[in-house]
C-alpha cells in the first residue's frame, strides 16, 4: 500500500529556509512593513497637532523640492557634515592605525585607551562634548583664559564652528573602529616587503607609499564608504549636542526629519523628508556592496 503522505526529503534548501524563517518574519514585520507604511504616510498630510490625515499624492515631495527653502539648506548642511566628518574620520583612522602598529613599550595599554570611544553611545559622546565645549565650565573656553588670549571664557560653539565641532565629535566616536580595522589589515602585510624596501634604500615615507598604502587601498575605501553612510544618517549626535542650532546652522536632513515629526508633529512631511534620506542611504549602500564585492582595488 502506498503511503498516503510520503515523507518529503529535507533538502539543504528547505533546511536553510526553516532556519531563516524567524529572521524573514522579523525583517518583514520590523523593517519592510514600517518602510511601506512610511511611504504611504509620506503621501498624506498627516499632522497630529492639527488632527488631519488625508491622501494628497506626491504633494509633500513637490513642496519639499520646490517650495521649502529649508530642504536645500538641510541638504547642504548634510553634505558639508558628511564630507567633513567622513574625511576627518578616515584620515585619523589611518594615522592612529599607523601609530598603533609601531612596536613600543606600553602599546597594549595605549590600544586599550584608544578603543574606548568606540564603545560609548553617541548620546554619551554628545554629553561629554557639552562639558568640553560649554562656555562657563568648558575646558576649551577656559583654555583661552589660561593661555592669556582672553580675560573671560569664550563661546566656542558658534553658528560658524558648530558643524566643524560635530564633525570632530563624529570622528572621535568612529575613529577607533576605522583604526582597528586598518590595524588588522596592516598586520597581514608581509614583513619581507618592508625588509626588501629597506635593503633597496627606501626611506620611511617611501616605504609607506610603496609598501603600506597599496595594501590599504581597499580597506580605506571600505571605511570611507562606511563613515559616509553613518554620517549621512547621524541624528543622535546632533540632537544631543546642538539640537540643530545655533539657529539652523546644524540642521541636517536627518535632524530635520526628526524635528518635523517629533516636535512639529507633521508625520506626513517628516516621512517624506526621510524618504530622501532612504534614497541617499540606499545609493551609498549599493556602492558599498559594489566596492566590497566587485571592485578589485
Amino acid at each position, binding site marked *: 500500500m502506498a503511503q498516503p503522505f510520503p515523507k518529503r526529503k*529535507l533538502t*539543504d534548501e528547505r533546511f*536553510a529556509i526553516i*532556519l*531563516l524563517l*524567524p*529572521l*524573514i518574519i*522579523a*525583517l518583514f514585520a520590523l*523593517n519592510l512593513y514600517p*518602510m511601506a*507604511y*512610511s511611504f504611504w*504616510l509620506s503621501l498624506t498630510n498627516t499632522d497630529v497637532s492639527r488632527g488631519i490625515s488625508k491622501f494628497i499624492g506626491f504633494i509633500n515631495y513637490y513642496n519639499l523640492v520646490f517650495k521649502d527653502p529649508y530642504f536645500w539648506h538641510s541638504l547642504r548642511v548634510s553634505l558639508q557634515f558628511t564630507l567633513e566628518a567622513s574625511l576627518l574620520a578616515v584620515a585619523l583612522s589611518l*594615522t592612529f592605525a*599607523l*601609530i*598603533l602598529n609601531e612596536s613600543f613599550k606600553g602599546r597594549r595599554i595605549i590600544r*586599550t*585607551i584608544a578603543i*574606548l*570611544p568606540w*564603545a560609548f*553611545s*553617541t*548620546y*554619551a559622546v554628545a*554629553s*561629554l562634548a*557639552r*562639558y*568640553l565645549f560649554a562656555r*562657563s*565650565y*568648558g*575646558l576649551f573656553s*577656559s583654555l583661552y*583664559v589660561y593661555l592669556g588670549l582672553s580675560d*573671560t571664557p569664550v563661546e566656542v560653539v558658534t553658528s560658524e564652528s558648530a558643524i566643524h565641532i560635530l564633525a570632530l565629535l563624529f570622528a572621535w566616536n568612529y575613529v577607533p*573602529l576605522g583604526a582597528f*580595522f586598518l*590595524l588588522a589589515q596592516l598586520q597581514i602585510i608581509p614583513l619581507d616587503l618592508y625588509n626588501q624596501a629597506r635593503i633597496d634604500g627606501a626611506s*620611511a615615507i617611501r616605504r609607506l607609499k610603496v609598501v603600506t598604502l597599496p595594501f590599504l587601498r581597499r580597506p580605506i575605501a571600505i571605511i570611507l564608504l*562606511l563613515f559616509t553612510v553613518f554620517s*549621512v*544618517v547621524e541624528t*543622535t549626535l546632533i540632537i*544631543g549636542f546642538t539640537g540643530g542650532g545655533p539657529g539652523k546652522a546644524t540642521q541636517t536632513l*536627518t535632524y530635520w*526629519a*526628526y524635528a518635523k*515629526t*517629533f516636535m512639529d508633529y507633521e508625520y506626513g512631511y517628516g516621512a517624506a523628508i*526621510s524618504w530622501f*534620506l532612504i534614497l541617499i*542611504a*540606499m545609493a551609498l549602500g549599493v556602492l*558599498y556592496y559594489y566596492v*566590497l564585492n566587485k571592485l578589485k582595488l
Partner: protein
Amino acid sequence: MKKALLIIGIVFVVLWSIIPIYWALNISLMYHFEVYSVPAHLFPEHPTLYNYLRSLGFSVFNPFTNRVDPPVGYPIREALINSFVVASMVSLITIAIATPAGYALGRYRTRHSGLLTALLLGSRTLPPVSILIPLYIIGLRYRLLGTTHGITVMHLALVLPLTTWILMGFFSTFPSEIEKAARVDGATRLQAIVRVVIPTALPAIVSAGLLSFLFSYNEYLFSWVFTSGTPAQTIQPTLASMWFMIGEINIMAAATILSLIVPVVISLYFQKYIIQVRLVDPYALAFE
C-alpha cells in the same frame, strides 16, 4: 627623528581619547560651587563622590553648606536596571534568531540567499529616523510605548540585521569538515548543529550577543521616543532628560560617567577580540 614623531603621535592618541572623558570626570568630582569657577579648574579642589552617591539614591552630607542633601530626583539606578533588562532580552532573542539565520546564509547557497543578503545590508543602511516614524505610530497603536517589551522589540528591528550579518560572515569562513564528519557518523543536520557547530562557534556567538547588548544599551533615538518619562525609561533618555531639567550639571556628569561603566568593561573584552580579527567587515562593529 622617527622616534620623536612616534612619541608625538602616541601623546596625541592618548590625549585625543582621554580628554573628553577626563573633563566630565573632573566635573563629576566637584561640588556645585566649584563648577562655575573662572577659569574652569583643571582638577577638582575638593574631590568628592558626593555626586555619585546622590545619583545612586543616597543622602549625602555637604560640608560646604552644612546640610544633608537628598538623593537626586532622577531614577538613575532604575534606568540602569531597565537598560540592563532590555539589553539582555535583546541580545538573547537576537542570538536565538540570528544564529540559525547566519548559519544558513553562511553555509548554504540557496536561490534566495542573494536577495536576503541584500535585504540585510539594506536594513543596516536604513536611516534609523526613517523607520522610527512608522514604528512610533505602530507602537502607539499596539500600546508598545512606555513598556520594556516595546523598546525591546524596537531594538530588535535595529540589531537583528546587524547581528545576522556578523554571524553570516563568521559561518561562511567556518570549516565544514567537523560537521561533515558528524553527518557521516549518522547525525541529522540539526544534531550536527546542536552538538558540533554551536559548541565550536560559541565564542563568536557570545561576542555577537555582547555586541547586541552594547548596541541596545547605547541606543538613544528609539529609547527616547519610546520610554522617556515612563517607568520603562532606560539610561540614555534619562541622561537626556536630566540635561534639560537639572540645574546641577556636576550630578549629570556623575550620571554620564556611571553610564559609561558598561561600555568600558565590554570594550576591554573586545580589545583582544578586535585585534585577533574575525570581523572582516567593519560594518559589523559600528554603533548608532
